[in-house]
């Protein structure tokens, strides 16, 4: 059966919806979310473990008055691993939110199908969901680019005062970028959760319309 979809605002509320003759199922980001949430979760745990191990090695070097260039290399590498962990855990949270939104979209459509309503009304992707996706991608870049640069700069360190100073400067700049990335990721997650509120509001209204549809 082919699905005819058209945009309308026929509900008593101001929601933008798709009207179809059967449930639309999950959209692409939601299908991706379902598949990637657990791999990202596993990657996060590995990143955190790697970061902590490097940090312990560096602490041992520092307490033994080890070479300055070695401790500086380990500082960059440790931060790189740790923020692979953070990028992965934030991605996993985002994918888990997308999975929840997918359950609402697919489940809501299937319930309307089961009742046999004349039309299946599905909420179009709200603006907050678009901000969630866009914010998540930008934040991911703001964390992953510094992570790559941490490894690149670590390979560039030599045992001279100028090199060590340059390494410290680079670390401070990358730390600033990472912090902005983390805050942006958290805000994107807030928008993702805010989308769930909108979906629940739409559902409460739509459910009450079903007996007359």
């Amino acid at each position, binding site marked *: 059966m082919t699905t005819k979809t058209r945009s309308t605002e026929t509900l008593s*509320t101001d929601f933008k919806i798709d009207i179809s003759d059967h449930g639309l199922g999950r959209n692409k980001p939601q299908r991706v979310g379902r598949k990637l*949430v*657990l791999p*990202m*979760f596993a990657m*996060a745990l590995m*990143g*955190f473990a790697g*970061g*902590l191990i490097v*940090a*312990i090695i*560096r*602490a041992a070097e*520092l*307490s033994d008055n080890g070479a300055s260039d070695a*401790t500086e290399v380990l500082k960059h590498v440790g931060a790189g691993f740790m923020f692979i962990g*953070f990028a992965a*855990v*934030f991605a*996993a*949270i985002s994918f*888990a*939110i997308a*999975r*929840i939104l997918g*359950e609402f979209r*697919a*489940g809501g459509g299937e*319930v309307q199908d*089961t*009742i046999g309503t004349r039309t299946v009304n599905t909420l179009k992707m709200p603006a907050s969901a678009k901000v969630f996706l866009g914010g998540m991608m930008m934040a991911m870049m703001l964390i992953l680019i510094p992570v790559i640069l941490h490894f690149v700069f670590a390979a560039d360190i030599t045992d001279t005062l100028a090199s060590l*100073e340059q390494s*410290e*400067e*680079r670390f*401070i*700049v990358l730390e*600033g*970028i990472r*912090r902005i990335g983390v*805050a*942006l990721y*958290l*805000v994107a997650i*807030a928008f993702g*959760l*805010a989308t*769930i*509120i*909108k979906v*629940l*509001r739409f*559902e*409460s*209204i739509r*459910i*009450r319309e*079903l*007996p007359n549809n």
Partner: protein
Amino acid sequence: MVARLETLTRPAPGLDFRKPSKQRQIGIGLGLVGLVLAVIAGIGNFAAAGDVADGTAGETLRWTFGLSVAGFGTVKLGIAVILVGILVRLWLRVAAVKETMPLVKAPGDGTAAQTGTYDSAWGKATATTTAPGPLPIHKMARTMWFPMLAMGFMALMIGLVLALVSSGETNPGSVASLFAWAQGTMFLGEAMLLGGIAFLLGSILAAIRDGGGEVQETVGVTVKTLKMPASAKAFVGLMMVGLMLGVAQFVLYIFVAANASANPGAWFAWLGPLREVSLGVLLASIVLALYTIGSTLGFQFDRMKQIIGTGK
């Protein structure tokens, strides 16, 4: 205490389900304020990078640390407010389903569904004649989310003041001690805020379970409830580990601050990553909580279709 907190997470009498959520707006507002604080701190870091050669970068870096962590905390508080909004909306959805289900469900054939444990598409589930009571972890989540958020935010603010004071301090011994206190306190606050968010997610799981039970009891069908999935058990375990690590890093930072013979550089080299791991583990527990919410919603939609289709 629980009764008073329920006034925050249950819809107020007469609340119009069509109206937009206030918590959604407040939460997004707090999130944007937090982002601005983190951006200011990031710009501060860029400026401090130029002061490495003359050895004055530390002063700037201490306040940018405080401001950025306070920014993260503010966004997390915004997330918590949005989660409260989700709880309120979940109960409004329960009311809608209770009202509508008797009108749309099939009449049924007069026989009741079997009770006992069975395998559903979403994991092991139980079928009972009445709604099962809340699990102990759900009761704990409903009691603990608010104190955790309140204590977390207070710790964060105390840590911010300590970071700002340490930024203006010139005595190296005092700087090391004050900044150790600031780091430990702020990350204890962050861990508590994430703990509060995790407890709110636990409260959402409780609301989905209780709401589902209430609807099925009201409609007069067998009450089918998903058993606690493995992801939920792992969520509780990881959350406890994350909180314990958050407390441990705080205690160790105080030890460094109080112990003049300790080598702060060596201690900070692994305490910094340890405090990040504590937050990472808490965030990982949040992933599992959200994953479990997705599974329970999937189970709930399947059950709704079953009641509509078979009437039992």
